[in-house]
């Protein structure tokens, strides 16, 4: 059982939870994630470790409420417990040793970019971050990222920072400055756009993929993604990959596999399908 040590609402649908997991807090590295399993009947869902505090034993999870499991998690309060937290999983981020890195975060992806920027700056790499959100209240982790270098904020409505997508700002930076590597984490369309942009420029680009997972240990193969002609298991071979090789269409498509179930699951959580729950169970 893992106690919730702290909670903070970062944006209308993004919540930060600090969760007691001392072993993971001590050894986790940027790019790694945990599998969280709230209760006996819950799903196992992957969440990136956004930060950690080895002294308090806390790991920081930044959660966007998109469906039943994530909504249940963000409803937790300090003092509540999570049944299982497994990790750290996945490979640590591939980091350059010197030079200039452009870190691009879209929405909740910004939280995943945070430990990467932190790690890079720690090694003496120059970090520029480009982060985006729908509007001002959706922009997260801006003050944290400012500790590691310049931060450019983009909002769709231009009400805060510059108007437009993170890719527009990234394009300008890539044109004006020498960039050795790009890290892009966010919605699939955003990562695809960044990869397309940097491919023509020949700048190495790392993306963090979010396929559906169960075990997170390489046992089920449900998280498979295509890189060129090769199949990789994101949980053990990734979750970060060379963005120029990733088949984003397939990833996006596979992410929609359970859409109908997700709608039912959410409807049931709100009590709308009591009848269905009773009638649909196996005889």
């Amino acid at each position, binding site marked *: 059982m893992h106690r919730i040590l702290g909670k903070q609402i970062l944006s209308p649908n993004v919540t930060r939870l600090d969760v007691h997991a001392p072993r993971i807090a001590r050894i986790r590295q940027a790019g790694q994630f945990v599998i969280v399993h709230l209760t006996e009947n819950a799903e196992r869902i992957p969440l990136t470790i956004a930060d950690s505090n080895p002294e308090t034993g806390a790991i920081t999870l930044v959660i966007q409420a998109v469906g039943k499991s994530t909504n249940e998690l963000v409803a937790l309060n300090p003092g509540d417990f999570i049944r299982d937290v497994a990790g750290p999983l996945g490979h640590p981020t591939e980091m350059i040793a010197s030079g200039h890195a452009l870190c691009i975060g879209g929405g909740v992806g910004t939280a995943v970019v945070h430990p990467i920027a932190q790690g890079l700056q720690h090694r003496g790499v120059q970090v520029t971050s480009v982060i985006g959100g729908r509007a001002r209240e959706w922009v997260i982790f801006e003050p944290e990222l400012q500790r590691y270098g310049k931060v450019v904020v983009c909002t769709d409505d231009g009400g805060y920072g510059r108007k437009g997508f993170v890719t527009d700002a990234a394009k300008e930076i890539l044109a004006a400055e020498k960039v050795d590597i790009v890290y892009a984490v966010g919605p699939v369309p955003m990562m695809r756009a960044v990869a397309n942009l940097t491919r023509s420029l020949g700048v190495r680009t790392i993306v963090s993929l979010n396929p559906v997972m169960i075990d997170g240990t*390489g046992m089920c*193969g449900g998280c498979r993604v295509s890189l060129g002609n090769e199949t990789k298991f994101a949980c053990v071979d990734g979750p970060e990959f060379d963005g120029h090789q990733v088949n984003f269409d397939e990833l996006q498509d596979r992410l929609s596999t359970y859409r109908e179930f997700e709608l039912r699951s959410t409807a049931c959580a709100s009590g709308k399908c009591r009848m269905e729950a009773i009638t649909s*169970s196996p005889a």
Partner: protein
Amino acid sequence: MSARITTKQRMQITRQAMPEQDAAARAANFLEVNLGLPERLALLEADRCLQCKDPRCMNGCPVGVNIPKFLDLLTAGKLAEAAQSLLCDNALPAVTGRVCPQETQCEAVCVRAAKGLPVGVGYLERYVADWAREHRDQLPQVKPEPTGKKVGIVGSGPAGLTAAGELARRGHDVTIYEALHKAGGVLIYGIPEFRLPKKIVAQEVERLQAAGVKIEYNVIIGRTYTIPELQEKFDAIFIANGAGLPVFMNVPGENFKGVYSANEYLTRINLMAAYDFPRSDTPVLNGQRVAVVGGGNVAMDAVRTAKRLGAKEAMIVYRRTHDELPARAEEVHHAEQEGVKFEFLTAPIEVIGNDKRWVTGMKCQKMKLGEPDSSGRRRPEVIPGSEFVLDCDVVVVAIGTKANPLLTATCPDLKLNKWGNIVADENGATSIPGVFAGGDIVRGAATVILAMGDGKKSAQAIDLYLAAVPKPVNLSAAV
């Protein structure tokens, strides 16, 4: 052997049939298919054993269960003693009685098989084990003297559980690390409820915990800790992390929506209870026409599960014939009774999908059997021009598993073979002193009883190894 009954009388008793749920009813539920022999039939069946002086059945059992002994005690009504005898040879008899391929092991060589049917060793093993589960208080509990030696075990499948039991019995301080949130390995995430009720596995795990075995869940060795780190904490280590890396067919269309590995399909349903969606949160696609590729136990479990989830057509697609099916005979028989269809001499070459990338079928080739290959089985050969499309909306790939490299990649000193399996001698000793390994990670995908046999042998070897390790000076911390 009692003179209560003569050999001639024994020979006259015919093999008792296992009572089972009606095929039509069970194809729509997840309850256990086999109901277990009632007492009267169990005693009759046990009387069929001739109590051979040189019992061949024992040679057929990979762990050498003393079959005539426990059967003799059973017929004498000494159930506690029968159970004790059985448990001494086999740590999980309630499991093996249900899932061992008896027809190729103990029962295959029973003398009674020469003329008629062998003694139902599996059924009787199950009978005695189930009695023992319900009468735990009648079995003697011995509390061993603590040795102060610590053993770490990786994985809670049959190999890990068996080793843990053996080591705890000898007074060692045992901790199991399990990557998932439940113990049992394939017994819990792979083999379905209708063949092995989860309650049985849970009871076995509780029994070990009562005997002092500690289990830490959600710990992935290779990530949370490495083997070198465990070496600092423990006097010896047993690695039993199984062969859990699914093999895919490597054909076009395999990443369409609706294609599962058997591991994923079964894990969603067994470990995550997807059959109970939306009361449990994990979904699974319940196809109307489910094609399962493969012919082993895993394939049979997947196809029978599909049937239970409501598939109108649940099919096995296998490139050889009925006679070469590697699954347990009983599973094939049960699948047939439940209405599973078999497409023999058929090999998929492509998964076909619609414009939304949902599976709609599988392009297959017909095969014929040619000359025997190195394994002695006749090699399937393609019949040119025989392509056809098999309509289906879910495909489950059950063509095998490989060694998962997650652990071994972080322990470079561990010697592996060319398939990535850990190299271990007959006692489970690996290339690292004090580190032992067994089960599927050493053998490749094998069986429950072989994994248990490895767990037992390694535990004995570890016990000897530990006897040579000096006792820790500070025992007070242990109390």
